[in-house]
Structures are given as C-alpha cells and as structure tokens.
C-alpha cells in the first residue's frame, strides 16, 4: 500500500486557484522531491500534507486512511527557519517530543523517566553530529547546526512521514553538502517516507527517489489567478535508489548490540 495517496486535490484561496487537480502516490520509504518556480504552490501542498490546510477539493490518504485535519506526531516537519525552539537548549529541543507524549499535564519529565529520555536524546544528537552542543541554545548555533537539530527533534517522535520545506535553502554550500549526506543516511537508517521541497535541482537529484515538478501551465498575468499549478514532470531517479541499503538506524541504541558500528558511517561534521 502507498504511504501517501493524493487524489484529485485542488487548493483555492478565495478566487485564486493555487493547486489544480493533482493526483499521485508515494510508496512507503520513498524520498519525493518537489521542485518548481517560486510561488507555484509547493509550500501550500506541503502544508496540506501536514494537515495545516485542508484541500478545497479532493482527498489525501495516509496509509489508506484520510489525513487527520491537523498536524500530529505521525508527520514530522522541518522548515527553512524557525523549526527549533529558541528558549530550549539543543538537548531540551530534542527531548521535547518525548516529554510531551509522556507528561500530558506538565509536558515536562522528572527523575528516572527524564534520565531515560535524556539518554535517548543525547544519542540522537550524536547521530546528527551535535555531540558536545547539547547545552547550546539555537541562537548560539550556526544555521547548519540548527537544521541538524531540527531533524533530530523531528525524528525523536519516530514519525512515519517527514516533510521538509527547503530545509537547507539558507545554508552555505559546504555545510549543505554535509547535511545532505546526513539526511540521506537518516533516510536509509530509519523507517521514513520523506517529502522535500527544494529550489536546488542538483539537491533534488542527489537525494530523491523521485522528483515532481510543479508548474502553472498558464502563467500570463490575467490567467494567473484562474489556473493553478499541476504536475509538469514526474521523474523517477535511475538507477532506483532504495532506502535501507545501509544498516538500519537505531535511535536509542539500547536494543541494538552493534551500536558502536551504527555511527561509524557518519561523515565528518563541520560545525560552522
């Protein structure tokens, strides 16, 4: 069964049609790249997948079930900016997901429970190359470190689907390459279906299993409002890239006897 099925989805804001009759499916553990010119509705589409916006017409199914009407912990997300909480340290940011699920009233854990979660979060920070930066606040981190942190934070809740809106768009090229490698490794090692918006075609080809290009078929000013974006190209990467080619990623490291090996494949991290 497909992880995500999009069936004849339209999105309109008032009179303006942004997305026009889009249908496609994403298989489980796929890595879908959305590309297209600025303003064509990529972010809008991602927001529908997130549950922040509802389609005007059409349906979106996740694992065969209709999408929840609001964001939940099935779908993780990383934006270009503002994806981490400035008032929490790196460790606090990563722990937050677990704390919220285990402490319904206060959203904060204490004692043994907290220590368990903290250990898990430290391991995850280590996986994304942020070992040593646990006590830093996001404002004291470079853009690349913040995005690594955002990924770790999102993965803590073990989402089935990860939505990324130009997550590396604001990073310098060198740092960008590193974090792309990290992203690919995380996708390989976890049970994730990824949908990622990007402006950078080379990034799309480097990471994706499939590339969808959105485009407005008619783009004259007087038509712009009346016609939305459709899928202009649908490219499957060849040779097919398959997730989990390398060893499965295990976050807590507790039930994996070979845990020291798990992080050995980690590329050198450059904290900028």
């Amino acid at each position, binding site marked *: 069964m497909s992880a995500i099925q999009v069936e004849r989805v339209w999105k309109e804001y008032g009179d303006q049609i942004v997305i026009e009759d889009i249908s496609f499916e994403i298989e489980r553990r796929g890595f879908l790249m959305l590309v297209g010119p600025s303003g064509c509705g990529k972010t809008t589409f991602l927001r529908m997948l997130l549950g922040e916006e509802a389609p005007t017409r059409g349906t979106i199914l996740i694992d065969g079930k209709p999408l929840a009407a609001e964001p939940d912990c099935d779908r993780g997300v990383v934006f270009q900016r503002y994806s981490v909480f400035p*008032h929490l340290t790196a460790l606090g940011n990563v722990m937050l997901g677990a704390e919220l699920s285990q402490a319904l009233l206060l*959203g904060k854990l204490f004692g043994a429970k907290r220590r368990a979660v903290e250990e898990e979060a430290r391991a995850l920070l280590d996986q994304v190359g942020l070992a040593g930066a646990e006590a830093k606040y996001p404002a004291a981190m470079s853009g690349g470190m913040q995005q690594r942190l955002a990924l770790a934070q999102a993965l803590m809740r073990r989402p089935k689907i990860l939505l990324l809106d130009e997550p590396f768009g604001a990073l310098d090229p060198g740092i960008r390459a590193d974090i792309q490698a990290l992203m690919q490794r995380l996708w390989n090692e976890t049970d994730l279906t990824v949908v990622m918006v990007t402006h950078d075609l080379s990034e799309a080809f480097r990471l994706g299993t499939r590339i969808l290009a959105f485009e407005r078929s008619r783009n004259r000013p007087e038509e712009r409002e009346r016609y939305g974006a459709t899928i202009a190209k649908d490219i499957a990467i060849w040779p097919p890239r398959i997730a989990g080619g390398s060893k499965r990623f295990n976050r807590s490291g507790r039930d994996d006897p070979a845990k020291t090996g798990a992080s050995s494949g980690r590329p050198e991290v450059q904290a900028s």
Partner: protein
Amino acid sequence: MRLLNVKPTRGQAVILAALPFALTCAAYLLFSHLRLAENPNDKLLPAVGGMVQMVTDLAFHPDPRTGDYTFWVDTAASLQRLFIALSISTIAALVIGIVMGLLPLAGALLNPYVAVISMAPPLALLPILFIVMGLGETSKITLIVIGTFPLLVRDLALRVSELPREQFLKAQTLGASTWQIALRVVLPQMLPRLVDALRLQLGPAWLFLIAAEAIASDSGLGYRIFLVRRYLAMDIILPYVAWITLLAFLADAALRWLQARAFPWFAVARAS
C-alpha cells in the same frame, strides 16, 4: 573626521555623562541661592542643607505621634502597593494574553474589547472605582491594575501572535496539545517579553499610585507629597521626587538584570 565617527574614550564618556547632572545641580544651587538671598523664607527652592535635614528627620527620627520612621513607612507602603498591583496585572496579563494570542476564538472575543478599553483614561474612572472597591488598599491596587493591565495584555497577545507559526506546527507534530503548547512553547518565550512590557508600564504604574494615594491614604510617597503640597513644602517634595525617581530607576535596572540573567537565550534571539 565626520562627527558620527568621533567616539569618546571611556574617560571622556564618564565626564560627558556626568555633565548634565552637574549642570542641573549647579542650576538648582544658583537659583535656590538667588531666591533665598531675596527672601530667606522662600519655600520654592529650599537650600540643600534644609532638605538634607528634613530627610534625615523623616528617615532616622521616629515620628513622636506614631513612633514610625515616616520616610521608610511611606516607602514601604508605596512599594508594597506597587508590587502587589504589578504582580496581579502581570500574572493576569500573562494568562489572558497567552490565551488571546494563542486561541483564535479568544482573540476574536477579546481583542477589540481590550483595544477599546485600553484607551479609556483610568484617572477619570477613579470615583467609580473607589465606590465599588472601597478606600482600602484594594482600590489603590485596582487603579494601578486597571491602568497597566490592558496595555500589558495587548502587548503580550501581540507578542504571542508574532511567534512564528512554524513553532506551533512543529509542536503539534511533536504531539503537543493546546495546553502543552501554551505551557512549554508559548509561556517560556513570553516571560522575557513580559519583562520588557513591564518595564514600559513602570512609569504609568507610579503615576497611578501617586494619583490613588493622593485621594485616600494615610501613608505612601504620593500621599506625603500631596499632603505637604498645600504648604508648598518643597523641602519634602523635592527629596521625595528624587527618591521616587531613584526607586523607579532601580526597578528598571533590576528588571533588565533579571531578564539578562533568567533568559540567557533571549538577548540573541531578540537581536536576530
């Protein structure tokens, strides 16, 4: 060299900073001397010696009638009122401001009302206030609360709504409920902003305190000033005004210190 590139050295800066204060003092001494030379009983600009004598009397010699040290009793009474009132209005503003800023329904309900109410001149409402609240501490505290609360709550609601939407979405993908978002995402980010808002309201709070004490009270800095105003006892009024200024300045400095101390992440987050 352009004037805007000329920077004083550390020593020059200290001298420059002291200059206006010194000039003010000199001007006072001069005019006071001139007036006293003409009429030794002039009360408007009393000699410094007289003021020092007066303050020493009030501060270090117990009042024969009550046995109190008038100056300190006044200070304690005023500060206590100020403290209670500002505590109430800050805490109320924090709770209601977060609710208004976070929940669209609450915002729709209260935003227009608070916007209008915050424009009403609290001083004109004094008579009603005294009748409803009586003349005890309650009415004085209420006046300060009424004078500061609407602006605090507006400010906070605005700040909450200025938080990036991404944070709320991210928190939801981490499974947070509305309550948890308020508690773990919004509240901690509002606390340092509350300090800013509170600093802005310190001036008005003093004003309302003085106005309330002028009408019905038997101690307090504002009370004393109004009591002796009929006799034009500037030898009490001027030191009291200076003292209030100093207290207000210290309160402001303390709040800034608290903010820097308690919210280390905020200074950087605000600058960016």
